[in-house]
């Protein structure tokens, strides 16, 4: 797995095994916290996977906004002289709350939960999940598979056919 170069935002390639283990950690977090929705994405705004109720939520838009929001608050941290970015961001709504935390420099975890759920519990279990994810992601071997293997030359040809269809060319 190629974790890229953090905020510089190189490519991230996730292998099957890694994806499975991430999914297991998120399932555990979902069952412990009873969060309504959990989203795991990268800091470039790409959604990776999600748990819980997701039908009504535009996951890709949510990931893009979460990454943008997190990066904006990282700039705020810099302005006030913090050496690292903020560990988490919490939004409190009337019915729902949202808890954003970074997982290392490259990833982001978003929990959406009922305003009746205790924040302390969310924080404890999220911290455990972040530790597990950080350990998992840091143990990964660099570049097991390359992006160029994913998009071979046939891919190009068929992609253009699909684009022409979508764009009404």
């Amino acid at each position: 797995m190629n974790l890229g170069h953090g905020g510089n935002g190189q490519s991230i390639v996730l292998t099957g095994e890694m994806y499975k283990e991430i999914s297991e950690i998120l399932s555990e977090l979902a069952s412990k916290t009873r969060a309504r929705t959990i989203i795991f994405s990268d800091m470039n705004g790409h959604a990776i996977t999600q748990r819980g109720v997701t039908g009504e939520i535009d996951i890709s838009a949510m990931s893009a906004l979460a990454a943008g929001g997190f990066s904006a608050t990282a700039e705020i941290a810099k302005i006030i002289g913090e050496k690292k970015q903020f560990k988490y961001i919490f939004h409190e709504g009337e019915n729902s709350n949202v808890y954003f935390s970074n997982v290392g420099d490259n990833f982001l975890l978003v929990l959406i939960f009922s305003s009746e759920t205790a924040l302390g519990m969310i924080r404890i279990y999220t911290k455990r999940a972040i530790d597990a994810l950080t350990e998992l992601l840091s143990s990964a071997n660099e570049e097991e598979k390359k992006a160029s293997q994913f998009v071979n030359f046939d891919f190009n040809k068929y992609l253009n056919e699909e684009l022409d269809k979508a764009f009404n060319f």
Partner: protein
Amino acid sequence: MFINWAQQEITLKIVYYGPGLSGKTTNLRYIYSHIDASKRGELITLNTKEDRTLFFDFLQLEVGKILGKKPRFNLYTVPGQVYYAHSRRIILSGVDGIVFVADSQRERMEDNLNTLLDLEQNLITMGRTLQDMPLVLQFNKSDLPNSANFELLQQRLNFYRVPHFNSVATTGIGVFETLKMIINQVVNHIQSHA
């Protein structure tokens, strides 16, 4: 770029960059309203009260499966106004390809040039270069009477001789041609570099 082998998904990030009021958001609006709803997400816009882009616009496109693989394209715009430099840098993080939307009007030439230099500077701080970045130039508002001629725009702005299009984003001229070209540039780049 994000690749998930387990799900056979690839997500690419394309950023529309350019000076204020050059038509970046108009490109995305046109794409949003002229592509089948099953192939796109909602258009997210973070605007000021005056309807200028404050942070970014976002639109995800999805075409059918290709050889079992699912490609997705995340399109972003940056805020063009000079004082949103920080926001532009944030949006560029992890970019796979850039569409530079220039304003063809003669009096905007300096703004185009300054924004192009701003882009190059931002890429350098991220350890990347404009020369090695999939890039397409779009000369927008080419229908206006005060637009500079094509040769002049080419000479002043296209120093890396990248693909380019004249466009009128409000009516869609050149919009999908630009998008198809940048997607091709990105995919070719992955095949030859990654």
